[in-house]
């Protein structure tokens, strides 16, 4: 049965928000706690929901404007929910000179989305990265934590469908 969606991330946010509160409190006494707390929030929800920002501001006693300012400064924090798979195309120097731009174009075409957007089925978010330190295997794309190396524009279709399949398998297992 479908769950009643309570928060924009589609998760049961009550449990997660409670968990977040525990995390914030555990960091509270540490100097410079704001960023580690935001990192924990990002990995807990997959993005930083409004409810979380309010809670963080309240418990850490930091003005909302500062919390928001920090979130928007760093590219790892996202205010919008992301797809199940975050595809990041490396646009570092090594990847760039080995044709990363063509891979990006192929991905945009294949997914019909632009950088920073999420596909309508909420499966893929497309983003770019600035070097993942795997330059010896350039060009690189990362899908969540998986590295795909020596990628050619013609490989893109196969890579995407392998994740689509994975999703199907997961669904079957869940049933």
């Amino acid at each position, binding site marked *: 049965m479908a769950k009643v969606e309570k928060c924009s991330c589609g998760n049961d946010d009550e449990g997660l928000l409670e968990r977040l509160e525990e995390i914030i409190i555990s960091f509270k006494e540490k*100097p*410079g*706690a*704001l*960023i*580690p707390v*935001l*990192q924990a929030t990002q990995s807990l929800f997959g993005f930083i929901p409004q409810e979380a920002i309010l809670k963080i501001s309240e418990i850490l006693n930091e003005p909302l404007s*500062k919390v928001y*300012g*920090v979130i928007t*400064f*760093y*590219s*790892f*924090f996202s205010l919008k929910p992301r797809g199940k798979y975050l595809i990041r195309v490396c*646009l*570092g*120097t*090594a990847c*760039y*000179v*080995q044709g990363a731009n*063509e891979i990006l*174009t192929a991905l945009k075409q294949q997914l019909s989305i632009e950088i920073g957007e999420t596909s309508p089925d909420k499966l893929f978010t497309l983003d770019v*990265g*600035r*070097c*993942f*330190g*795997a*330059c*010896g*295997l*350039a060009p690189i794309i990362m899908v969540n*934590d998986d*590295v795909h*190396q020596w990628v050619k*524009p*013609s490989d893109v279709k196969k890579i995407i469908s392998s994740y689509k399949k994975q999703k199907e398998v997961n669904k079957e297992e869940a049933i």
Partner: protein
Amino acid sequence: MDINKYMHVLKNAEDLTTLCDTLLKSKEYNSEKIYICAGGGCIASGSMKVKDAFVSQLSNAKLDGTLEIMETGCLGPCAIGPVVVIGKDDTFYQKVRAQDVKEIVEQHLIGGKIIENLLHPVDEQKVSKKSELPFFKNQDKQVLRNCGKINPTKIADYIACGGYKALSKVLTSMSSEQVVQEVTVSGLRGRGGAGFPTGTKWNFARKSQDTEKYILCNADEGDPGAFMDRSILEGDPHSIIEGMAIGAFAIGSSTGYVYVRAEYPLAIERLQIAIDQAQEFGLIGKNIFGTGFNFDLEIRKGSGAFVCGEETALITSIEGNRGEPRPRPPFPAEKGLWNKPTVLNNVETFSNIPLLINKGGAQFAEIGTEKSKGTKIFALAGTVKISGLVEVPVGTPLRKLVYDIGGGISTNKKYKAAQIGGPSGGCIPAEHLDVPLDYESLNKLGAIMGSGGLIVMDESSCMVDVARFFLEFVQDESCGKCVPCREGTARMKQIVDRICEGKGEMKDIDELEKLASTVTNASLCGLGQTAPNPVLSTLRHFKEEYIEHIRDKKCRTAVCKDLIVFEILDKCNGCQACKKVCPVEAIHGEKKQAHIINTELCIRCGLCLSTCKFEAIVKY
């Protein structure tokens, strides 16, 4: 087998010596080994599957009691991974797949016969020994001494190789002044890019009377195309911890942070394991070796902002703020983290410290050039045959790196340039291939040593486009705090964009040079101050390419889209494949007759070129 079982809390320096002797004599340490690279690159290429295959094949062959599998840090040649080294005869196997393992075990380990087709070919010949391969033979691995030899997740491995001896020496027999003196004598210069003398930096902080001081390790490694620090963090994390503890003692600090970029999850994981182990066995924490010296170390993760590699921005970020740089002075050595005296060094700099203390400063200084001592690690990438991680004495000629170690250009085109120093650096053209890689010589050519990223480009790279690439990078990553960097780089990018689009004018070149000097002189931090370098260096060495773009509206490499022309040759057989894929219906022609592209309509997407099976379409 596990030599970790010999580990116990080390109460004093003698404990360490005894432990090291025990480990060296242990059966486990002396057993024959198979080294499997578990560096980030080889893992991506599938080395963990190879390891699993070895585990099961060795057990099948009943060899698991005599042979030990060692998962090591990066061995270097990432491009030909997964790599495996057979310890007993130093055989080096490349591109090993799980299905090759059975053969290795049966034929080589049992039968004594080397598997030819897994060897790395050198000039058509197969060389089996790792030590005889040009890639390894031409290097001098000092800082990377343990990478590829030890398991980075086992502290016992590090100790057996003499780890933490330098810390014990420092804590039990040297004063902080002597440590700083030794570092000064060694001539070690910071490996994070600017090459500031480490001894001088430490001395500033040591002299401060403040009782609260901090030591920070910069593991932000933001230069795109660089992965030296990543490999040390993943391959020999204890050397960083030991170096930082020594630094802390030298300046009088008891707290350290390592700021690691979030893009390196494996590095963070391995460093955390190493910190936990060092703590467990009393090598960091309270009263180390019973000397009363305390040192606590914590990891702080970055969140994806290049500017946070700059020292004051990094400090601001650890404090929990937007990572914007502060004006200097005051320098961090005076007012750094939480306004306390702070020393910040790069990963590789810290990794050099135990080596330097063990050898002594004077002996350390025997390697390198007159003004730059020791070795430097480079991340060799781009169109070079063996891209990967290499370490050579400072002052080694670029040619040796690209050709002797890297095996030359990987494509059938010629060397065009090597980009060194990332967004703050420049390009070295072919006529300067013999430049010695040291701070001064590179500066003279308008490049910088930087942190060690070295991207080789062949003739298919457009140098104007490379300049545009870096401008886009700094534009994206500029924190926006100061106007010259934020607006100046945007303006420069507009001009270069225009040139790439074929809309440039000759006066644009002067304009670029003028803007570059304003941005260099007026920016707040190093990001802006060095941002024009890629433009200036390509203008200096490849001006004719700018002129071609502007005057002839031509990009000789056919990289700049707006200047490309696609043409169908007479040999076209009219299969219509290109006509079908063209998204703007710019291709015309009857079936079985040569087609034509209407250049007015063509959007230069290149689909026709990649679709044609008969090589009947060219771009120029």
